[in-house]
């Protein structure tokens, strides 16, 4: 299996470096991380394709994390999107659910293991759902024929 291509949407340079550090797992899974700073860049990069997973900062200086998530979901309803925020609250979580986030992690308590587990869960789920959607579409097509 090839490396997982991660789009990391984050305007804080230190946070970007931290996530890149967490995802640097030479012994385990290989991640290739592309970092962007704004909502616009995120949507443009995503539109070009080749993204397996998005890590999205909820509070972006340029743009809006929630709005960015909604735009990404219009482009792909299944790709895993993990939202991170420095200020976690149930209200934000509720908004993120509605917009289609796969998980919501608090930057304060984020570590390598929490991130890896969240990514693993979201990726496995997305792959399974995609495979099932493909199989169902095939079945429907066969039924029509």
């Amino acid at each position, binding site marked *: 299996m090839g490396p997982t291509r991660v789009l990391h949407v984050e305007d804080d340079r230190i946070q970007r470096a931290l996530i890149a550090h967490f995802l640097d797992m030479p012994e385990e899974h290989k991640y290739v991380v592309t970092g962007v700073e704004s909502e616009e860049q995120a949507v443009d990069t995503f539109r070009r394709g080749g993204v397996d997973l998005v890590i999205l900062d909820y509070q972006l200086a340029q743009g809006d994390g929630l709005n960015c998530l909604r735009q990404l979901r219009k482009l792909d309803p299944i790709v895993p999107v993990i939202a991170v925020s420095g200020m976690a609250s149930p209200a934000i979580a509720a908004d993120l*659910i509605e917009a289609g986030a796969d998980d919501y992690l608090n930057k304060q308590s984020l570590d390598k293991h929490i991130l890896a587990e969240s990514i693993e*869960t979201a990726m*496995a789920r*997305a792959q399974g*759902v995609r495979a099932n959607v493909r199989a169902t579409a095939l079945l429907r097509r066969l039924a029509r024929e």
Partner: protein
Amino acid sequence: MYCLNIILIGCDERVLPDLRREALNHSATVEAEFADLPSALNGLESHPDQTRLFIVHVGSDPELAQLKRLSRAFVGRPIIALVDADKDASMVVKAMRAGALQVVPLPFQRADFGAALDCIAVQFGLAPGGAKTIAVAGATGGCGTTTIALNLAYELACTQQVKCILMELSMRMGVLASHLDVQPRYTTSDLLFDDKVDSYAVNQALSTIAENFSILPGPYQSIEPGIIKPDAVLALMEMAGRLAQIVVVDVPCTFDDLYFKSLSAADSVVLVTQQKVSSIRGAQMVCEALPDLQALVVVNRYDPKLHGFSADRLRTLLRCPGLTTVANDPAVGAAVDHGRPLRLHAARSSALADIGKLMKVLIPEEMRSNGHIERPTLFDRLSHAFSFSAKV
């Protein structure tokens, strides 16, 4: 199941093990075994009106005469005669003249006997109905799927007197055995790697926990996962369905082929989630990926005060009007710690009351009261799967 009650008469050890096994494989129950016809007539006198299938071994003219007596004593009841046709081929015709509806020549052949049973079942409107299968699946790991499945199955068995099998599909480190503090001899892995498994073998592998309640746990001492073909699991579910009225299947949250196939094969799906972004998203994705399932979403460990995660809001979000909740009750964890079903540990638990409500949604009152669990027909399932309606 319970479509046929079988009375065995004059059958000896050459055929009895095969007969018992095949009866089970055809959802039939061996009600009684008699050495000869006179003792059968005496024994059955007190229940003359029950619907029964008689299986009688006929090897001689006196036994033919007895067969004739039986058919006259129980008019309209089907009889299968087992005849030693290799000794005297005319016995086949003689047995039919004496009142046998089907004749099965000996030595015993499974397929031939099965065909005779199926034919009688169809003729008498007793075709196997099979069990209702309820898949209880997690939207994410750790949301309490096994606990819900266990207590739901136990409630069905013990409060509704419905014969229920709980099957754990976890392929490694299953937790069902520890939740009940038992160490069953057999697990699903003993059956899934055997190509010749039938309902008889499944029945032998079941561990009885209480009256009407048996389990088939996942391998609870194995760390290494085996490679399981989904079709083998579906066949196992089907075979378990011949032994009970309801089969509750605890489906681990793997989102693989086995996960989706198990859900698609079930008659009802309970999707267990909790008030977390990842878990709600998991439920949402399953509901959207398998819209025809009309999964019943259950929010486990529900906290009504958690802002933004109210049941009403989640109902709208997941487009699941039937969404229900199970209270966040410490008694659930305590019951697991004690290795007991919740009813035995805390009968007044609020979570148990919620599971009771869930049970009533899954098995409506009229079905529970008459003991008949309605199951969709093949046509219902196909039209459901391909979203077309039988109505014009």
